[in-house]
C-alpha cells in the first residue's frame, strides 16, 4: 500500500447528488487531491508478448449499435478478450495485472472535445481493472473541463466508493488552476500538467476516440494528452508536429502511461475534431495496445482506408500529413512503421471498413 490512500486529505467537494451542478457552477469550491508526491511505482513486469508493438483490434456488432451504444458489460467482455489477445494470457485478470496493481491510482484520460470517448467504453475499462483488486474509487476518469465531461455523457463524481470523474478545472485552485506548479519541458513543449496526473496518479491510461483532426490528420491515443497540459493551443502549428510527440514524452505522462485504448465504435473519418455525424460510420471496434504510437498508426490506417473507400483524399493530399507518429517513434515512444506492428484482428478484419 502506498502513502496515497484514499483516506488521506482528499476532501469532499461535491456531494454525489450535487456533483454535476456544483461543477457546472464553476468548480470554485475545488477538489483537494491526495498530493502524495510520490513517484509512480515501477511498471509491472512487461508483457511477454514478443512484440511490444502488438495492437489488438477487436470488432463486434454489439459495438456498432446506435443510440445509447453498447452496454459497459458487453464492452467489458470484449475488452477482456482484447487484453488476453494482447498479452497471450488465458485469463483476462492476468492480463490486466501486467499493467496495473491494486495499489495503483489510475487516471483514465478521455477526450470530450467534439466527438467524445463513449462513457460505456471508459467505464468498461474501469470495471476491467477492478478484476485485479484495483478499487473503483482509485480510478479517476478525467479531462480538461468538467463541463465537457458532463456534455459527453459522463456522470461527475468527486468522492464516494465509485469511479471518480471530474475535470482538471474542478481541482482546488492553488494559483495554477488545477495544474502543476512546475513547468515541464519536453522537446519543443513547455507546459504545466494536470495535477490529476502529477499529484493523484501512479498509472495512466489513454481512453481516446478515433477521429479525424483538421490539422494533425487524426486524433487518437497520443493527441488525447493535449488535454493534460495547460496550453495545448500553443502546439497546433505544423500539423501539431512535433508537439503531440513532445507532450506525450513529458516525464509525468511517459512514466505513467501503461495502456492505450481507442474507441473505434463509431469513428469519424472527416470533419474532426467537431462531431459530424455524416462522416461517422459503425466500425464497431476497440483498439488496445501498450504502444501508443502503434495504436495511433493502426487507427490512422483505419481512417485512411475509410476515406479511400468513400473517395476522399488521404490526409497528406489535403496538406495535413500525419507527421507526429514518426516524431513519436524518434522519441522512443513506440513504433510508427506499420510493417513493424503486429496487428491482431478479432472479429471482422481490421481493414474491412465497408
Amino acid at each position, binding site marked *: 500500500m502506498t502513502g496515497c490512500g484514499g483516506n488521506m486529505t482528499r476532501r469532499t467537494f461535491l456531494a454525489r447528488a450535487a456533483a454535476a451542478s456544483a461543477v457546472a457552477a*464553476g468548480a470554485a469550491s475545488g477538489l483537494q487531491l491526495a498530493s502524495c508526491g510520490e513517484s509512480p511505482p515501477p511498471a509491472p513486469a512487461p508483457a511477454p508478448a514478443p512484440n511490444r508493438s502488438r495492437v489488438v483490434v477487436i470488432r463486434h456488432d454489439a459495438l456498432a449499435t446506435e443510440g445509447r451504444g453498447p452496454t459497459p458489460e458487453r464492452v467489458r467482455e470484449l475488452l477482456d478478450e482484447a487484453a488476453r489477445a494482447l498479452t497471450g494470457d488465458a485469463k483476462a485478470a492476468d492480463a490486466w495485472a501486467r499493467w496495473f496493481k491494486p495499489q495503483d491510482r489510475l487516471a483514465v484520460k478521455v477526450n470530450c472535445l467534439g466527438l467524445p470517448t463513449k462513457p460505456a467504453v471508459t467505464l468498461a475499462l474501469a470495471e476491467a481493472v477492478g478484476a485485479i483488486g484495483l478499487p473503483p474509487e482509485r480510478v479517476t476518469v478525467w479531462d480538461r473541463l468538467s463541463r465537457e465531461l458532463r456534455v459527453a455523457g459522463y456522470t461527475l463524481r468527486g468522492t464516494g466508493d465509485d469511479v471518480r470523474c471530474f475535470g482538471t478545472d474542478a481541482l482546488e485552485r492553488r*494559483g495554477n*488552476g488545477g495544474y502543476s506548479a512546475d*513547468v515541464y519541458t519536453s522537446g519543443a513543449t513547455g507546459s504545466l500538467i494536470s495535477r490529476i496526473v502529477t499529484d493523484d496518479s501512479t498509472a495512466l491510461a489513454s481512453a481516446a476516440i478515433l477521429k479525424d483532426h483538421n490539422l494533425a490528420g487524426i486524433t487518437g491515443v497520443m493527441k488525447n494528452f493535449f488535454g493534460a497540459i*495547460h496550453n495545448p493551443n500553443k502546439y497546433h502549428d505544423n500539423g501539431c508536429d512535433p508537439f503531440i510527440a513532445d507532450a506525450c514524452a513529458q516525464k509525468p505522462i511517459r512514466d505513467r502511461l501503461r495502456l492505450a485504448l481507442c474507441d473505434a465504435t463509431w469513428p469519424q473519418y472527416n470533419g474532426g475534431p467537431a462531431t*459530424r455525424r455524416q462522416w461517422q460510420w459503425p466500425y464497431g471496434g476497440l483498439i488496445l495496445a501498450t504502444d501508443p504510437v502503434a495504436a495511433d498508426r493502426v487507427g490512422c490506417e483505419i481512417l485512411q482506408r475509410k476515406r479511400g473507400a468513400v473517395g476522399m483524399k488521404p490526409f497528406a493530399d489535403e496538406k495535413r500529413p500525419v507527421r507526429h507518429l514518426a516524431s513519436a517513434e524518434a522519441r522512443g515512444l513506440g513504433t510508427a512503421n506499420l510493417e513493424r506492428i503486429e496487428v491482431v484482428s478479432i472479429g471482422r478484419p481490421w481493414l474491412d471498413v465497408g
Partner: protein
Amino acid sequence: MNAKHATTRREFLRAAGAGACALCAARALAEDAAGDRVTDGARPQAAVHDAMWFERLPDKAVRCTLCPRECVVAEVERGYCGVRENQGGDYKTLVYGNLCSINLDPIEKKPLYHYLPTTTALSVATAGCNMECKFCQNWRISQYRPEQVESLLIPPENLVRIARTRRSPTMAFTYSEPVVFYEYAHDAAAIGRKQGVGSVIISNGYIREPALRELCKHLTGVKVDLKAFTEKFYVEQCAAHLKPVLDALEVLADIGIHTEIVVLLIPTLNDSAAETEKMAKWLVSHMGPDVPVHFSRFHPTYRVKNLPPTPIATLDRARKVAMDAGLRYVYVGNVPFHEGSNTYCPKCGKVVIKRVGYKTDVSQLRDGACASCGTKIPGVWTQEQALAFKPKEKAPPKPAAQS
C-alpha cells in the same frame, strides 16, 4: 548595488504581476464600478463576444485575420492565443471584459516616458497571448487560458467609469497581450475617448495592419516590445517572426501615433552590440530618431532560468550604441536609480525629466520643451494633446501608370 537592484526588481515584478495581490487590488478597483459582476474564472462564457477579425471557411472552419499567425480554427477549437474559439462556425472571443488583472499604475511603469509623465494608467489584462516567449515575465496570465485564471467581469463602459472615478487619464491594455483581447480594448478605448480618457496598448506588435489601423483610431499611445532584431530569436524564443513586428512598427510610424519601444536584453540571446546597432539604425530610419527606446533588464523566469540577470554594463553599452546610431531618447529600464532613466535634452544635455523609481520630476519640462534651452521634447505632454490625436489615413495606392 546589484543585490539592491535585484530585490527591487522582484518587488517590481510582484507589483506588476497578476497574482493574488493584483486580484485583490482588482476587486478594490472593481468596487468603483457598481453593478460589476464577479466571475469565478471557470465560466469564460460570461465574456463571450463576437470576434472582429476572421473569415469563414468551408466545414464551419474560420481563419483568424487578427494577427500574422492567421490561425485556421476548426469548430470547437481555439486559436493559438487560447482565448478565441470557433463556436459553430462563428469566431468568438472568450475574454471580452474577463479581466484577470487590474491595477492603477504609474504610466512610467508601462514604461511610457514621453506620455503624460507623473500620471496614472488604469491597467488591465486578460489571459492569453499570441506569442510564447520563453522569458515572459507575466507568463502566469499570458500563457494561460481564460478558464485557468481567476477573473472579474468588467464591461468596457465600467472600465471607463473606474478610470474617471480614479482620476486616471489613461487606460492601459497591458501585462499579457492586448492584441488577443482586441475587441475589449477597441470598445473600451472608443468609449474612453468620448469621455476624456485616453488609451494605450503595451503590445508585442504582432498584429496585422488592418486590425492595427482600426484600433489606432481609438488609441492615444502605443508601446511595443521589440523582442530582438533577429528572426532566429523570434522563432526560437517567441514562436513568432520578426518581420510582422517590423511591419507593425512601420504602420505605427505611418499613422503618427505616439510610440515607444522596449527591448528586453537577455544575456547571450539578443544583447550583442552588433544586433543593438542594427536595430537602432533601423529604428532611426523607419521611425525617426525621436522614438523613445528602453533597454530593459532581464530576470530569469518561466522557461529561461539558466541565464543570469542582464548586467548593468550590458544595458549601458546598448544605450550608448543606440545613441551613437542616432537615437536621441534611449533609456535603461528595470534598474531603479540609474541615470539612464532620465530624459536628457538632446541639445544642451540637461536633465529635463528626472526619474527615481516611479517618482518623476518634470519641473524642467516647460510646455513640452527643455526649460534650459527651449528645445522641444517629442511626446504627449497634456491630456488635450493625447485626446486630439487622429491617425493619418493610409495613403491611397498610386494609380497604375497609363500606357
